[in-house]
Protein backbone atom coordinates (compact mmCIF):
# COMPACT_ATOMS: atom_id res chain seq x y z
CA UNK A 1 0.00 0.00 0.00
CA UNK A 2 1.04 3.58 -0.60
CA UNK A 3 -0.57 6.72 0.81
CA UNK A 4 -1.67 9.28 -1.78
CA UNK A 5 -2.23 12.92 -0.78
CA UNK A 6 -3.78 15.74 -2.85
CA UNK A 7 -3.68 19.42 -1.88
CA UNK A 8 -5.39 22.73 -2.61
CA UNK A 9 -7.02 23.16 -6.06
CA UNK A 10 -6.15 19.56 -6.93
CA UNK A 11 -7.80 18.21 -3.76
CA UNK A 12 -11.00 20.08 -4.61
CA UNK A 13 -10.99 19.00 -8.28
CA UNK A 14 -10.51 15.31 -7.36
CA UNK A 15 -12.93 15.47 -4.44
CA UNK A 16 -10.48 13.75 -2.10
CA UNK A 17 -7.42 14.70 -0.07
CA UNK A 18 -6.15 11.24 0.78
CA UNK A 19 -6.37 7.62 -0.27
CA UNK A 20 -4.57 4.35 0.31
CA UNK A 21 -3.63 2.50 -2.85
CA UNK A 22 -2.29 -1.01 -3.44
CA UNK A 23 0.64 -0.25 -5.74
CA UNK A 24 -0.17 -1.99 -9.08
CA UNK A 25 2.60 -4.27 -10.31
CA UNK A 26 4.85 -2.52 -12.81
CA UNK A 27 4.23 0.94 -11.32
CA UNK A 28 7.55 1.89 -9.72
CA UNK A 29 8.15 5.53 -10.62
CA UNK A 30 6.25 8.73 -9.93
CA UNK A 31 5.68 9.22 -13.66
CA UNK A 32 4.17 5.75 -14.03
CA UNK A 33 1.94 6.34 -11.00
CA UNK A 34 0.67 9.61 -12.45
CA UNK A 35 -0.14 7.93 -15.80
CA UNK A 36 -1.96 5.19 -13.89
CA UNK A 37 -4.08 7.75 -12.00
CA UNK A 38 -4.82 9.62 -15.24
CA UNK A 39 -6.49 6.47 -16.61
CA UNK A 40 -9.20 6.71 -13.94
CA UNK A 41 -10.86 9.17 -16.34
CA UNK A 42 -13.04 12.25 -15.68
CA UNK A 43 -11.43 14.69 -13.22
CA UNK A 44 -8.44 12.35 -12.91
CA UNK A 45 -7.80 12.39 -16.65
CA UNK A 46 -7.96 16.18 -16.69
CA UNK A 47 -5.89 16.91 -13.57
CA UNK A 48 -3.18 14.28 -14.04
CA UNK A 49 -2.69 14.98 -17.78
CA UNK A 50 0.92 15.58 -18.82
CA UNK A 51 0.18 19.20 -19.73
CA UNK A 52 -1.03 20.13 -16.21
CA UNK A 53 1.53 22.01 -14.10
CA UNK A 54 1.56 19.60 -11.14
CA UNK A 55 4.24 19.22 -8.48
CA UNK A 56 4.83 16.11 -6.42
CA UNK A 57 6.67 14.82 -3.38
CA UNK A 58 7.66 11.32 -2.33
CA UNK A 59 8.05 10.87 1.41
CA UNK A 60 7.87 14.67 1.80
CA UNK A 61 10.75 15.43 -0.56
CA UNK A 62 10.28 17.08 -3.95
CA UNK A 63 10.07 14.36 -6.63
CA UNK A 64 10.39 14.14 -10.41
CA UNK A 65 8.86 11.73 -12.96
CA UNK A 66 11.75 9.27 -12.56
CA UNK A 67 11.67 9.26 -8.73
CA UNK A 68 11.24 5.62 -7.58
CA UNK A 69 8.07 4.61 -5.73
CA UNK A 70 7.79 1.56 -3.49
CA UNK A 71 5.34 0.00 -1.09
CA UNK A 72 4.87 2.10 2.08
CA UNK A 73 5.70 5.44 0.44
CA UNK A 74 3.77 8.67 1.00
CA UNK A 75 3.17 10.29 -2.39
CA UNK A 76 1.70 13.78 -2.70
CA UNK A 77 0.47 15.70 -5.76
CA UNK A 78 -0.17 19.46 -5.62
CA UNK A 79 -0.23 22.70 -7.65
CA UNK A 80 2.75 25.11 -7.61
CA UNK A 81 3.07 26.56 -4.10
CA UNK A 82 1.80 30.05 -3.22
CA UNK A 83 2.66 30.63 0.44
CA UNK A 84 4.65 33.40 2.12
Amino acid sequence: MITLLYFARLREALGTGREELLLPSGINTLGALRAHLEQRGDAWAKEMAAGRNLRAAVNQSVAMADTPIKDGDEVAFFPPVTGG
Partner: protein
Amino acid sequence: MSVRIHEQDFDVSAEMAAMRKDNPKIGAIASFVGVVRDINEGDSVATMTLEHYPGMTEKAITEIIDQARGRWEVLDALVIHRVGTLKPTDQIVLVIVASTHRGDAFAACEFIMDFLKTRAPFWKKEITPQGARWVDARVADDQAAERWKT
Protein backbone atom coordinates in the same frame (compact mmCIF):
# COMPACT_ATOMS: atom_id res chain seq x y z
CA MET B 1 16.92 27.53 14.55
CA SER B 2 13.19 27.04 14.67
CA VAL B 3 10.27 26.47 12.28
CA ARG B 4 6.68 26.83 13.44
CA ILE B 5 3.42 26.43 11.52
CA HIS B 6 0.23 27.43 13.33
CA GLU B 7 -3.02 29.37 13.09
CA GLN B 8 -2.43 31.96 15.81
CA ASP B 9 -0.69 35.29 15.27
CA PHE B 10 2.99 35.93 16.17
CA ASP B 11 4.80 38.70 18.06
CA VAL B 12 7.91 39.91 16.20
CA SER B 13 9.29 41.80 19.23
CA ALA B 14 8.99 38.79 21.52
CA GLU B 15 10.72 36.49 19.02
CA MET B 16 13.58 38.95 18.50
CA ALA B 17 13.96 39.53 22.24
CA ALA B 18 14.31 35.77 22.82
CA MET B 19 17.07 35.59 20.20
CA ARG B 20 18.95 38.59 21.62
CA LYS B 21 18.76 37.24 25.15
CA ASP B 22 20.13 33.85 24.07
CA ASN B 23 23.20 35.12 22.26
CA PRO B 24 25.13 38.33 23.06
CA LYS B 25 27.21 37.85 19.88
CA ILE B 26 24.20 38.95 17.81
CA GLY B 27 24.77 42.40 16.31
CA ALA B 28 22.28 42.38 13.43
CA ILE B 29 18.73 41.07 13.09
CA ALA B 30 17.01 41.18 9.70
CA SER B 31 13.37 40.21 9.44
CA PHE B 32 10.57 39.90 6.94
CA VAL B 33 6.82 39.88 7.57
CA GLY B 34 4.37 38.98 4.80
CA VAL B 35 0.96 40.66 5.14
CA VAL B 36 -2.47 39.96 3.57
CA ARG B 37 -3.28 42.76 1.11
CA ASP B 38 -6.81 44.00 0.49
CA ILE B 39 -6.28 43.90 -3.29
CA ASN B 40 -4.68 41.12 -5.35
CA GLU B 41 -4.63 40.87 -9.15
CA GLY B 42 -7.02 43.84 -9.24
CA ASP B 43 -9.76 42.31 -7.08
CA SER B 44 -10.57 43.15 -3.48
CA VAL B 45 -9.83 40.37 -1.01
CA ALA B 46 -12.18 39.77 1.92
CA THR B 47 -10.40 36.80 3.48
CA MET B 48 -7.75 34.28 2.57
CA THR B 49 -7.34 30.65 3.61
CA LEU B 50 -3.92 29.03 3.80
CA GLU B 51 -3.57 25.27 3.35
CA HIS B 52 -0.30 23.39 3.87
CA TYR B 53 1.22 19.92 3.77
CA PRO B 54 1.93 19.08 7.43
CA GLY B 55 5.30 17.46 7.89
CA MET B 56 6.70 18.35 4.49
CA THR B 57 6.32 22.06 5.22
CA GLU B 58 8.57 21.95 8.29
CA LYS B 59 11.04 19.69 6.45
CA ALA B 60 11.23 21.97 3.40
CA ILE B 61 11.74 25.13 5.47
CA THR B 62 14.37 23.47 7.66
CA GLU B 63 16.27 22.53 4.51
CA ILE B 64 16.08 26.12 3.23
CA ILE B 65 17.45 27.43 6.56
CA ASP B 66 20.27 24.86 6.42
CA GLN B 67 21.20 26.07 2.93
CA ALA B 68 21.29 29.67 4.18
CA ARG B 69 23.54 28.60 7.07
CA GLY B 70 25.93 27.07 4.55
CA ARG B 71 26.23 30.35 2.65
CA TRP B 72 26.21 33.02 5.37
CA GLU B 73 27.02 33.40 9.06
CA VAL B 74 23.67 32.70 10.72
CA LEU B 75 23.70 32.83 14.52
CA ASP B 76 19.97 32.15 14.78
CA ALA B 77 17.01 31.87 12.43
CA LEU B 78 13.28 31.54 12.88
CA VAL B 79 10.43 30.97 10.43
CA ILE B 80 6.79 31.15 11.50
CA HIS B 81 4.06 30.61 8.89
CA ARG B 82 0.39 30.92 9.70
CA VAL B 83 -2.31 28.65 8.24
CA GLY B 84 -6.10 28.87 8.35
CA THR B 85 -8.23 31.91 7.56
CA LEU B 86 -6.69 35.41 7.51
CA LYS B 87 -7.98 38.86 6.56
CA PRO B 88 -6.31 41.94 5.03
CA THR B 89 -3.60 43.53 7.24
CA ASP B 90 -3.09 40.18 9.05
CA GLN B 91 0.46 38.83 9.32
CA ILE B 92 1.08 35.65 7.26
CA VAL B 93 4.75 34.77 7.59
CA LEU B 94 7.75 35.81 9.68
CA VAL B 95 11.41 35.19 8.85
CA ILE B 96 14.06 36.40 11.32
CA VAL B 97 17.80 35.93 10.82
CA ALA B 98 20.37 37.02 13.42
CA SER B 99 24.06 37.39 12.62
CA THR B 100 27.14 39.30 13.75
CA HIS B 101 26.97 41.78 10.87
CA ARG B 102 24.07 43.06 8.82
CA GLY B 103 25.17 41.91 5.35
CA ASP B 104 24.82 38.24 6.32
CA ALA B 105 21.52 38.84 8.13
CA PHE B 106 19.91 40.63 5.17
CA ALA B 107 21.12 38.13 2.55
CA ALA B 108 20.13 35.02 4.51
CA CYS B 109 16.70 36.48 5.36
CA GLU B 110 15.89 37.34 1.74
CA PHE B 111 17.24 33.96 0.54
CA ILE B 112 15.04 32.06 3.00
CA MET B 113 11.99 34.09 2.00
CA ASP B 114 12.61 33.64 -1.76
CA PHE B 115 12.92 29.86 -1.40
CA LEU B 116 10.02 29.57 1.02
CA LYS B 117 7.88 31.23 -1.67
CA THR B 118 8.83 28.65 -4.31
CA ARG B 119 9.58 25.48 -2.29
CA ALA B 120 7.47 25.34 0.88
CA PRO B 121 4.10 23.59 0.35
CA PHE B 122 1.54 26.28 1.18
CA TRP B 123 -1.43 27.27 -0.97
CA LYS B 124 -3.54 30.43 -0.72
CA LYS B 125 -7.23 30.63 -1.53
CA GLU B 126 -8.76 34.08 -1.70
CA ILE B 127 -12.38 35.04 -1.14
CA THR B 128 -13.26 37.97 -3.46
CA PRO B 129 -16.59 39.49 -4.56
CA GLN B 130 -16.21 37.24 -7.64
CA GLY B 131 -16.06 34.16 -5.40
CA ALA B 132 -13.31 31.93 -4.04
CA ARG B 133 -10.18 31.32 -6.10
CA TRP B 134 -6.84 29.62 -5.63
CA VAL B 135 -3.96 32.06 -6.03
CA ASP B 136 -1.71 31.34 -9.02
CA ALA B 137 2.04 30.97 -8.50
CA ARG B 138 3.91 34.10 -9.61
CA VAL B 139 6.64 33.93 -12.25
CA ALA B 140 8.39 36.75 -10.30
CA ASP B 141 8.78 34.39 -7.35
CA ASP B 142 10.53 31.75 -9.46
CA GLN B 143 12.82 34.46 -10.81
CA ALA B 144 13.60 35.71 -7.29
CA ALA B 145 14.68 32.23 -6.19
CA GLU B 146 16.59 31.65 -9.43
CA ARG B 147 18.96 34.59 -8.93
CA TRP B 148 20.58 32.97 -5.86
CA LYS B 149 22.11 30.29 -8.11
CA THR B 150 24.84 32.66 -9.31
